[in-house]
């Protein structure tokens, strides 16, 4: 009986592992494909993915008679690995660089602002006692529960009233005061034992001193987690720039990737790799603190 239970547990573990591996493969598949294909030449890419570009124009395809149905052949290994596509993106597509810095200009203020606002608001919500605190926090949470597409229209109207259209301000300010940062940081700050703050108060520290010297060092993992999540969120935004920014050359990189596939496909893979590089690097940099932060706040990633 014991042996049977043990073997069942082992089988279960194996099955779990298999499922996890399968899920992991499914998640990693597009990323790995993007990275390897970024090293292919333009010619090779258009050969394999030509069918995507034709979009139903049968007369244009000379191979149509040879192939019964057009299909995309997925290739993992480049016939001749080359950095041609990267060079093409960086040297010949000045737009890529422009839009890259647009993304930075949009994302950096949001990430920094959201962290500052979130940390300060979290201290107020978690560690200060004032009337209506929990009700207000609940209201704040409600805005987070709604998908942001729902708030996009009111967002637009407010931005218009404030005369911020079209500008980065219309995207940055709502991002800075997003509810998610406040919520995440409140969870963290609530985890700090009150005795620390009481001890500080007894020693004569004011709110500012307690915040800077006690709360901030303790919520550092949370701040890292918030920064990474906010960065990912805003680096990838598509809807807001489409709505709030008129000029094509002021759009962020996320929009560029949507446009690039029309013309040169070889460039698309290389641009994608470059596009996700800052995210990957920043994640790896803050990885341990991020994991700790997510675990302690009880928020799933």
């Amino acid at each position, binding site marked *: 009986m014991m042996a049977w239970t043990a073997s069942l547990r082992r089988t279960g573990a194996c099955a779990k592992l298999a499922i996890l591996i399968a899920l992991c493969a499914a998640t990693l598949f597009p990323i790995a494909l993007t990275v390897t294909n970024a090293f292919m030449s333009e010619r090779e890419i258009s050969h394999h993915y030509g069918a995507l570009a034709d979009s139903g124009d049968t007369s244009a395809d000379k191979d149509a008679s040879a192939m019964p149905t057009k299909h995309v052949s997925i290739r993992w290994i480049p016939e001749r690995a080359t950095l041609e596509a990267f060079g093409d993106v*960086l*040297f*010949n597509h*000045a*737009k890529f*660089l*422009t839009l*890259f*810095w647009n993304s930075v200009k949009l994302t950096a203020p949001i990430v920094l602002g959201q962290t500052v606002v979130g940390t300060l608001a979290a201290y107020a919500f978690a560690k200060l006692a004032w009337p209506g605190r929990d009700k207000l926090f609940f209201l704040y949470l409600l805005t987070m529960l709604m998908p942001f597409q729902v708030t996009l229209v009111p967002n637009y109207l407010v931005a218009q009233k404030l005369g911020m259209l079209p500008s980065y301000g219309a995207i940055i300010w709502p991002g800075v005061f997003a509810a998610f940062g406040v919520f995440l940081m409140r969870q963290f700050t609530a985890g700090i034992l009150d005795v620390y703050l009481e001890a500080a108060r007894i020693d004569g520290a004011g709110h500012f001193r307690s915040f800077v010297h006690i709360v901030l060092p303790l919520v550092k993992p949370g701040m890292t987690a918030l920064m990474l999540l906010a960065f990912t969120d805003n680096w990838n935004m598509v809807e807001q720039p489409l709505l709030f920014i008129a*000029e094509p*050359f*002021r759009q962020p990189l996320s929009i560029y990737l949507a446009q690039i596939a029309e013309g040169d496909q070889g460039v698309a893979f290389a641009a994608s790799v470059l596009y996700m*590089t*800052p995210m990957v*690097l*920043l994640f*790896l*940099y803050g990885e*341990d603190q991020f994991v700790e932060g997510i675990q302690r706040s009880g928020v799933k990633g």
Partner: protein
Amino acid sequence: MHRRKIALRWAIGVFFGSLLVLTFLSNTIQSLTLPKVAVETPDTGSLDLSVDAEGYLQPAYTAQLIPLGSWTVSEVKARKGDRVKKGDSIVTFDTTTTQRSLEDEQARRKQEQIRLEQLQDALKLLMRGDDQDAIERQKRDMESQQLSLDMEQRKVEELERQISDGQVLRAPTDGVVESLNVEAGANVSPGQPVGTIASDASGYQFVISASGDAGDALSIGDKVTVQVDGADAPQTQTAAGVRGKKALSGPDVRQLQGTISTIEEGGDGADSDAKRVTVDISGTDLSPGLKATAYIPRQSQSPGLKISTDALKSDDNGTYVFAVTDKEGPLGSSYFAEKAYVTTGEQTDDTVLILNGLGPDERVVTDASEPLSDGDRVRLE
């Protein structure tokens, strides 16, 4: 763990740093590879098809000075370029040789006269007899002798006329001595001209060349304003034939009215479509070799945009120019050359009129460092 963090920090720094450097250099990199173009902005208005060309006056009719006999020049009374009236003496000849032959002929006439008288005397003798045949014969001899006498008479008269008419060579017409190629002591022979006189009455003409649509627009009989430099006579003497105001460019410049008399294909160059246009002008005090400037004002039929002919190109679909459009960006403006098909109007050597297909504010490529195709990014010179 710590070393990994440092490595990652470096990676992030290098990534953003290299993108910053590339951004900083992006315009430089691009300008190294982009074709360089020269542009111009078209002028709005009508194309000036005026012809403004120079020529030198030539007489329309030249009279030749021909001596009547083989004589020696004794005196040349006029010089090249002199203005002469009809009948003025130009060259006088030493007619001694003709004088001598005249005397010979006169003597011969006398001889014929005497022979005729002898025949008359002989006839009188014959008339006393009645040899009718001999009388008849004698009469015919007399008739023949009379003819010889007449011939001799005419020779004498001819020589006399030669001497009286030919001793002084006179101007056949009012005009200017255009050439005179004898001097005192030179021998001349009859029929060989010794000089020419440009006739005033026939007027003058000069040839200009007009190219392109400006040339096409001309027609025979068109009136032309002609400016003549350095006329011999002072301004006050200009009268008939002189119209228009005096030109401001100097006291020696006059404005005359001319008429186009002929238009011929073929200008100076083999490849040019220029036309040779002859303009007649008349007026007093003109002389050969004066510089004349013809000005034929003419505007294109409809106004349009004037661009350099260098900008005009053509392909199977028609005539086009490359118009430069710019797109604003935070990295500065970028320029693109785009094909614009145009309708052209009149054209001169260096300017062409665009009637359609181009805006007045567009910049047009006149020269490119390498061949362009539609949509190419370019840099401006």
